[in-house]
């Protein structure tokens, strides 16, 4: 069966007919009812997926308002997704259909992807939750990937309406237990077919070896060591089983406060300075305990402030920087700009677009994150000091900032595997609470903060500004952000590695139950065919020539540092004396007494920053070196692909970046084949395999929303702001009149 259960109407083999109904009247529906049930398409279930409830004769609006087009079909809710089974759209052998997600169909919404549900009662829109007394005639579902679905239930039997509406509300909005996640039933049912993909080189950081490898790659192994004190999560459930600390740090210090208050290594710069993070010590009122804390931190300080370690500068991310609350508010305002119920609403807001965008302050938050990352980069790169990121649990903004710094400074993190490894290291192993931050269990809306999405958006800004520097494309980032809500991958469904291991049965002593091996999101072949995967790869990316040879040998462990600058000795800073004060700050901060606006606002720092920033931008960009994003007002942009892709009005047929991309790919291929020919002539070597034909190699005009928004291609009519074209006579009608055509042009 290979995971594809077939349920329902038994009409699976029948060729689907288009059933576009405009201005449907109830009587039409009733007369057609038999036909409708016969035409149903099959529901594909994943292994372990169960059908919970369904309703037939549901109308899905294809476009709102003027067109009133609806597709008739079944609405189904399983323990994995909400699916609408309409008659298939006429098959299109266009390139666009080939970028299909194998797990999530066009009309599928995973339960975790549902953001809000609205019902329409007598033309009034109301948010739906809990037990309903009255059932709506229309259901509007806002998704977290910003799709908006409209389902009309007017022609559905009352029984079915009740069942499906309450089913959907319950399964998407009621708090859930972790063990009830679809992830577990899928992993259990699909155990036999989940094959580990050996091709993927993403470093998972779940073994000591991985950490040692990373230390070696960044040449951090001189001063830092990977430790296994937390094996089996004996010390702390928050930290991964293995992590890296300064070499002289004694083990008991790690144990003392369950891993709080100790500097944990993130990354080492080519000049030897390192990025560290630390979770704050628990807040205490008791003076005695505070004294103990102080002496503990003094001890820590003595270890990391002595040569060979560089001077440490602290960045307290929980007091001087963004708050999670701010991020949450900004995003919820921002996303409303794109969750559009009908085009009238859209055009109403369109004229104020820029001020609405600005008032959401999402772009400003992105700017502040990028700026903070640049500041830290400046410390590491120019001042040659260690930077210690400090946060309550070191698992939100710490992850964001430290991974941004690495993307900017380490070209390895701009390759696909490097980026994936980075996410593994900083986010998954770093203990970012994906479960809470994405609110997968619907337990607390307050905890839902799109920190990871913010990170992806920041990276998008970089990708957008420096396309040749990244091996992946914006499409990659977009599908990665979508994967956050697909509960067959374990990557984004746990709060910590400890939670994952215990629940996946890896750490349980119960020898009878075999540990489950869930899929990771990095296995892109689960979601996309190889052809579609070419869209995730940036054709403009050029590997660093030196690295090229090393990689051809295909040796996993032979990754070299990209930045081949010599390891310089830390400068003996004339400012040593100055650092006594800094230590006080450090300790005060660590003790939880927040001193705001003292550390970061000094003028000297601003000047250094400006100079560094200006200096870098006045030189030509080395795409394999340091990257500093532009952060001026006009430079921070909206990630159009992710946010606008479902809005039909945003479509530009034959336009957008895709148009340049296809040209580029064509030329790249030509360059490649010419190079091969030259190689052939010179060395008569064996030919390299030609690249798989790409989806973009196609002279047809693609839509600017490519590869998303397949549906909208049908609306070849222009959308007029004030009203809209009325569907005037269909094509048949037109054909009849064809004989009567008279060319009046030359009369």
């Amino acid at each position, binding site marked *: 069966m290979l995971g594809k259960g077939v349920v329902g109407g038994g009409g699976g083999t029948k060729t689907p007919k288009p059933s576009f109904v405009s201005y449907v009247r109830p009587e039409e529906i009733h007369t057609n009812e038999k036909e409708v049930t016969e035409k149903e398409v099959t529901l594909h279930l994943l292994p372990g997926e169960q059908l919970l409830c369904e309703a037939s004769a549901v109308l899905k609006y294809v476009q709102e308002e003027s067109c009133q087009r609806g597709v008739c079909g079944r609405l189904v809710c399983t323990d994995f997704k909400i699916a609408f089974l309409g008659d298939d759209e006429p098959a299109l052998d266009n390139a666009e259909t080939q970028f299909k997600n194998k797990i999530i169909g066009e009309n599928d919404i995973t339960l975790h992807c549902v953001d809000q549900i609205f019902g329409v009662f007598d033309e009034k829109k109301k948010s739906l939750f809990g037990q309903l007394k009255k059932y709506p005639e229309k259901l509007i579902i806002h998704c977290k990937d910003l799709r908006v679905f409209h389902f009309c239930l007017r022609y559905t039997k009352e029984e079915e309406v009740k069942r499906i509406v309450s089913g959907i509300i319950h399964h998407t909005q009621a708090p859930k237990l972790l063990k009830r996640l679809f992830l577990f039933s899928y992993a259990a049912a699909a155990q036999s077919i989940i094959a580990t993909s050996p091709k993927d080189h993403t470093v998972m950081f779940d073994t000591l070896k991985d950490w040692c490898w990373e230390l070696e790659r960044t040449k951090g192994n001189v001063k830092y060591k990977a430790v296994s004190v937390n094996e089996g999560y004996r010390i702390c459930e928050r930290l991964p089983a293995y992590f890296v600390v300064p070499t002289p740090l004694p083990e008991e210090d790690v144990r003392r406060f369950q891993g709080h208050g100790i500097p944990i290594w993130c990354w080492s710069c080519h000049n030897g300075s390192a990025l560290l993070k630390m979770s704050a010590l628990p807040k205490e009122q008791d003076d005695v305990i505070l004294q103990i804390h102080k002496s503990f931190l003094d001890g820590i300080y003595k270890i990391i402030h002595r040569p060979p370690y560089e001077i440490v500068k602290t960045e307290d991310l929980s007091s001087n920087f963004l708050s999670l609350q701010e991020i949450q508010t900004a995003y919820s305002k921002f996303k409303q700009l794109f969750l559009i119920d009908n085009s009238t609403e859209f055009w109403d807001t369109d*004229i104020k677009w*820029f001020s609405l965008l600005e008032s959401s302050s999402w772009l400003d938050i992105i700017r502040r994150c990028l700026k903070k990352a640049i500041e830290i980069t400046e410390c590491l790169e120019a001042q040659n000091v260690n930077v210690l990121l400090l946060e309550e649990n070191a698992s939100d903004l710490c992850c964001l900032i430290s991974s941004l710094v690495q993307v900017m400074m380490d070209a390895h993190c701009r390759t696909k595997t490097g980026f994936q490894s980075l996410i593994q290291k900083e986010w998954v192993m770093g203990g970012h609470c994906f479960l809470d931050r994405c609110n997968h269990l619907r337990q607390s809306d307050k905890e839902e903060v799109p920190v990871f999405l913010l990170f992806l958006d920041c990276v998008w800004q970089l990708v957008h*500004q420096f396309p040749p520097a990244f091996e992946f494309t914006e499409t990659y980032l977009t599908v990665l952000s979508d994967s956050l809500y697909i509960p067959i991958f374990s990557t984004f469904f746990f709060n910590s590695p400890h939670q994952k291991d215990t629940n996946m049965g890896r750490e349980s002593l119960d020898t009878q139950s075999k540990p489950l091996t869930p899929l990771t999101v990095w296995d892109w072949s689960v979601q996309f065919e190889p052809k579609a995967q070419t869209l995730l790869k940036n054709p*403009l990316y050029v590997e660093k020539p030196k690295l090229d040879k090393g990689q051809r040998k295909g040796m996993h462990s032979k990754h070299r540092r990209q930045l081949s600058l010599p390891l310089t000795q830390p400068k003996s800073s004339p400012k040593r004396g100055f650092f006594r004060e800094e230590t006080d700050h450090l300790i005060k901060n660590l003790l939880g007494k927040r001193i705001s606006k003292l550390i970061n606002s000094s003028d000297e720092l601003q000047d250094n920053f400006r100079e560094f920033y200006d200096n870098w931008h006045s*030189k030509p960009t080395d795409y394999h070196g340091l990257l500093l994003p532009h952060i001026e007002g006009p430079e921070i942009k909206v990630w159009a692909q992710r946010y606008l892709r479902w809005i039909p009005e945003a*479509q530009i047929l034959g336009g957008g970046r895709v148009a340049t991309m296809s040209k580029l790919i064509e030329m790249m291929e*030509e360059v490649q084949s010419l190079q091969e020919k030259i190689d052939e002539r010179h060395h008569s070597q064996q030919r390299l395999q030609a690249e798989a034909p790409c989806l973009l190699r196609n002279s047809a005009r693609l839509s600017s929303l490519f590869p998303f928004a397949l549906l909208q291609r049908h609306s070849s009519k222009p959308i007029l702001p004030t009203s809209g*074209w009325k569907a005037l006579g269909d094509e048949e009608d037109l054909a009849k009149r064809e004989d*009567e055509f008279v060319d009046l*042009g030359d009369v």
Partner: protein
Amino acid sequence: MWWGGRGQSFNIAPHKEEPEMGLRGPKSDQGGRMPEPRSRRLGGCLASGCLPGNHALPMPLTPRLHPGLHLGLPHGWQGPEYLGHLDTPLSSDYDFALVNIGRLEAVDGLGLSRVQLLRPGSQLKFVPEELLIHGRDFRLLRVGFEAGGLEPQAWQVTMAIVQARAQSSQAQQCLGLPLTKAGQGSDSRKPPIPLLETSEDWEFERKKQGARGWRVSTVNERFDVATSLPRYFLVPSRVLDSEVRRAFGHFHQGRGPRLSWHHPGGSDLLRCGGFYTASDPNKEDIRAVESMLQAGHSDVVLVDVVDELPGLADVQLAHLRLRALCVPDSSVAEDKWLSALEGTRWLDYVRSCLRKASDISVLVTSRVRSVVLQERGDRDLNGLLSSLVQLLSAPEARTLCGFQSLVQREWVAAGHPFLTRLGGTGATPVFLLFLDCVWQLLQQFPAEFEFSEFFLLALHDSVRVPDTLTFLRNTPWERGKQSGQFSSYTQVYTPGYSHPPAGNSINLQLSVWDWDLRYSNEQILQFHNPGYNPEHGPDAWLPRQQVSFLVPGPPSSVWLFSKGALTPLHQLCPWRESPSLLAVSSRWLPRMAVSSESLADQEWGLPSHWGACPLPPGLLLPGYLGPQIRLWRRCYLRGRPEVQMGLSALTVSGLQDELSHLQELLRKWTPRAFPGDHSKKRDPSTILSHSC
């Protein structure tokens, strides 16, 4: 402020390599040395805009602004070579026409950072350390005196500029803009683009468009119908010249309906001025007007151009605000940038132009209706809309040549008052608004245009360069008068005389389209968009015969397109039944009650017998949503080099270079021609002058 006050800063080098370059009688040495590529390091001359015979600025006063010596040079300014390929490929960056100077500021370097605004005729109050020249085209030139060793002459240089500016503005007031003696020796040049000053040019244009029902009218040969009209234009073949004359008198300033573009599917795009309401036409007049407007079509859509588009004053204000926002020392906080941008309303106007053009081009191409653009003056927004419609609908107009002849036809020949709109203090840059619209299209459809952003930039910067007459006169008549074209026959009217005597049009055949006067070959190469997909070009499109979807309607139905909806009109002209003025205007307005009803149940108000047609393959439908209209940063933010950065389009050209290099290599080894050689030989002459 994030970007502080940094602009392009240059030091003045004592001229050594190319002495006297700064003093070149502006471009007088051009004619003889056409083939040799102009040095990109010309440096340029502050005084290049001064009067002929009046460029006797004292020697040290013509500083060579040397980009090579740098002091904290911004991104990308490593040397001229680098500069040529990256940020701003146009050397005219250092050419500042005096007219172009928007604001001149002297900065005192004594730590006080005193700034003095220098108006024409004002006196310097101190010896400046730095001179800031704010261009009206968004450029900023910073001249640092100290580091270049020119400190002693700082005073002189500054005052010379101030004086030259004063003189030029004086001269401008009494003479109109003076013309430099560019290209005087090159009288035998063939214009790269038909200038549409002869009837042959128009006949050629008519044939190219395949407008069979149209002919070239010579009625305005002596500019006696209207001085703002070209001497020749296209009218329906069935209408006699006497009728043309009769009809045109009833339009504002005599600008009656003329053909702008003929759609191969059969519909036409016409433009005309507003009805001259004070006139009292007789029956025959009305019949002439109607037959000219209808041009043989049963359905005609009148488009009220002003409706929903910005007024001239709006454009002026928006452009001023935009410039204030984009100067390097603008005081807008970066988190308030977006709302400040919105506040200029410039992008909003760009959007409304695109929206209207998109609606009209759907009417013309997909619905195959004839459209008449009507604007009172017919010299501003009509040109903008009709050019945009053609860019959207005709792949021909999207080629390098096609676009230039489009501008020549719809703007230059059609009498757009360039001098008034772009000169002086009350400038209303409708043309620059148009260029911004085109840039938006370029952004949205990077594979559909043969020309590049740099070409648009060059055009943008050319509007104030006093080289050629193209943009420096208000009407074709003034332009012709200046060039002395019709001195011999304005006295005598010879009927049927269709072309001016040869040899009379000496040097002034030169136009802005002679790019090699001002730009080097390397720069002209960059006019070409490497991402252009020739498969979408005009040749691919035209041979496929457009199926005509014309559906006969009730005889003579006339529609008004306004506020995004069509409403039926009783009649074309306002005068037919009652010549009284009041009655006219009320009848002229669409019947409000009826139209609002019809809007409700007929949506766009389209007559039901106009079937929905598939969109023709060559049609572009632009996006005009808030997020899709962007700021033309490469143009408006030029004063802020921090904001400039590489574009992916340049990567395409990089790849293309690599391709041709590789092909060259292969060709060396293989004697036979390489078959897959589709990268065109990139040569400026082929780019600019292949058969237009």
